[in-house]
């Protein structure tokens, strides 16, 4: 128990940071599911692409020592924009190639999910066989950022109780919350967002009311992809390494977070991400980090068994989200 109390603070901080990343990725699952009733299995690779785009920016800019102040803010903004563009573009392409033809035929959802798995495997291997060796010149399918100069300083800034808070913790949580608020405003406060909500609620009626469904679907993929891109940058800052399979685990956990919060519900995704991050972080004090994936899956099964609509309920399809 002493052990638990001693580690509780740091585990909470770590859980919130990793939870923010899950939450951002979960947004993509939740929005696409809300609009198309499709688990976008390849969303995990959209996230990975964002991370690799960030590595590319760091290498291009040529960071040689941890940066601070305005230079850091500028660098992060640039990285986030590039990663959002890369991930959003991938998501759009994915929709165009893997889902649109099926949607046009009105294919079964089984066919759509299998197509999604195919796209996921394809992208994963593309990153492993083409992008990593030919763009980054690495051969083992992974990129260790530790071998490069650090981008941000990782000494504790201050502590709350016995939990030291580092700059990257702050950046991750703040960035995630800012992105969430922006997305929430976009979906709830603009004309584009109204189209998304209308489609999620009742596609047929939305079409009759003059909503351009194709445009709505594209926007949804673009927004979800962009959020995953931000998550990729934050993941890289936090863990300082990436490999081609990283999206698989993060993707599963983010999907769990989306279901936990109530799939189709944007605010639910944020809540689900934080809850899952914390549960995982706390449980690994007792069980060890090697069981953290198992924890996430067990949480997923329990939620689906006892409250399949999640904590906040499925709400993108209703008017609220």
């Amino acid at each position, binding site marked *: 128990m002493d052990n638990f109390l001693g580690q509780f603070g740091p585990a909470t901080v770590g859980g919130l940071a990793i939870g923010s990343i899950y939450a951002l990725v979960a947004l993509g699952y939740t929005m696409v599911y809300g609009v*198309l*009733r*499709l*688990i976008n299995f390849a969303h995990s690779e959209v996230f990975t692409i964002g991370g690799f785009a960030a590595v590319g920016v760091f290498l291009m800019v040529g960071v040689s020592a941890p940066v601070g102040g305005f230079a850091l803010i500028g660098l992060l903004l640039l990285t986030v924009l590039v990663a959002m563009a890369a991930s959003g573009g991938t998501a759009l392409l994915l929709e165009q*190639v*893997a*889902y649109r*033809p*099926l*949607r*046009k*035929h*009105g*294919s*079964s*959802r*089984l*066919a*759509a*999910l*299998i*197509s999604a*798995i*195919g*796209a*996921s*495997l*394809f*992208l*994963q*291997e*593309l990153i492993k*066989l083409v992008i990593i060796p030919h763009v980054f010149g690495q051969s083992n399918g992974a990129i260790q950022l530790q071998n490069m100069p650090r981008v941000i300083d990782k000494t504790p800034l201050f502590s709350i109780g016995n939990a030291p808070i580092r700059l990257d913790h702050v950046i991750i949580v703040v960035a995630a919350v800012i992105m969430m608020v922006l997305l929430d405003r976009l979906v709830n406060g603009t004309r584009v967002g109204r189209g998304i909500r209308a*489609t999620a609620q*009742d*596609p*047929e009626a939305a*079409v009759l009311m003059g909503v351009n*469904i194709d445009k709505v*679907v594209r926007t949804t993929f673009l927004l979800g992809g962009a959020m995953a891109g931000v998550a990729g940058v934050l993941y890289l800052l936090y863990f300082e390494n990436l490999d081609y399979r990283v999206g*698989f685990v993060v993707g*599963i956990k983010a*999907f769990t977070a989306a*279901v936990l919060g109530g799939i189709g519900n944007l605010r639910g995704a944020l809540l689900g991400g934080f809850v899952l991050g914390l549960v995982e972080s706390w449980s690994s004090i007792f069980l060890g980090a*090697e*069981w953290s*994936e*198992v924890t*996430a*899956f*067990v949480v*997923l*099964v329990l939620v*689906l*068994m006892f409250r*399949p609509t999640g904590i906040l309920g499925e709400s993108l399809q209703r008017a609220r989200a």
Partner: protein
Amino acid sequence: MTGNKSPLRRAFAPIGAFNDKMRDWWEGANLWVRWAVYLLLIIFALTLLPSPQFATFMMPGSDWVSTLIHPIGTFILLAIGLNVVVGQAGLLDLGYVAFFAIGGYSLAYFGTKYGWNFWATVVVGILLTGVSGIILGAPTLRLRGDYLAIVTLGFGEIVRITANNTDEIGGARGITGVPHPTLPGVEFTLRDAAPYYYLMVGAIVLVIILSRRVEKSRVGRAWAAIREDEDAAELMGVPTFKFKLLAFAMGAVIGGFGGAIWASKVSFIEPGNFPFILSATILAAVVLGGSGNLPGVIVGAFLIAWLPERLRFINEYRILIFGAALVLMMAFRPEGLLPSRRRRAELAEGTGGMGSMGAEVATQTTVEPSEVSK
């Protein structure tokens, strides 16, 4: 369907026409002709297929018989098992490799720890996988199709990670010295692949007969009803939950059987043998071959196991090609190379067991049942 005009769809048309002709002939053939064909196929599998003449063409410069056992034989066994779950009952299982692992680990554990005999352990392993199928199915089979897919994926990963983290079953190092089968007059060893080949052929024939008999029975009809429209099946008095559980258990049993034979052949087992990609590969075999149609599934498994071995230069790009093939297949021929007619009709209707994605958007004719009830 606008898609019928696309060139890729037309490119598949000769296969479909040939398939239809074969099927018409088969429907019309009498019992003796059918038995003769079965017999010829078995004789072919036992004599010609593993022969050196065949090997030079199929697999020059490599051990063809070993390749026939693994990956080809194991893939065929697993694909037949997964076909029960995905093709017949219409439940998407993304963690099928878990049952393969449980079957293999049962044999390895009881064989090395307690020195149990191979045959007894296979029976125990099959029972254990059946039970694990029920343990997985009981809480999760009430879920909708795509949720079920994710939960089964989770189950597959849980089994792999648990094996990796449990020292009692060897942890990450795995278990060596898995027992070989014992039969009077036949010696199963690591060096000689032939006895294992006959064992594998026997297992596949057994599983095909089992799967065929069940498909034609009341159980098979119940599965088809569930696959086509679960709500309608329930209303007609089919106990859907019970039958879905049975499909899971039967698929699991076949997977476990395959795992046991495989583990005893390679005599070594470790958690790394059971990644998610193996589940995806078996699923690809079922889907590419023609989900729900036994000959199609077998052909699909054979191709997916054999092509990367034969064309070594594509081996590195194997998964990349699988991925692209799955996407293309779903866009242009979702029913697979050799589909069953019924399955093809279902997919053309856009039902295929799970309702249709975005059909309400594309055609504006269907409404999801869940939406009506709200």
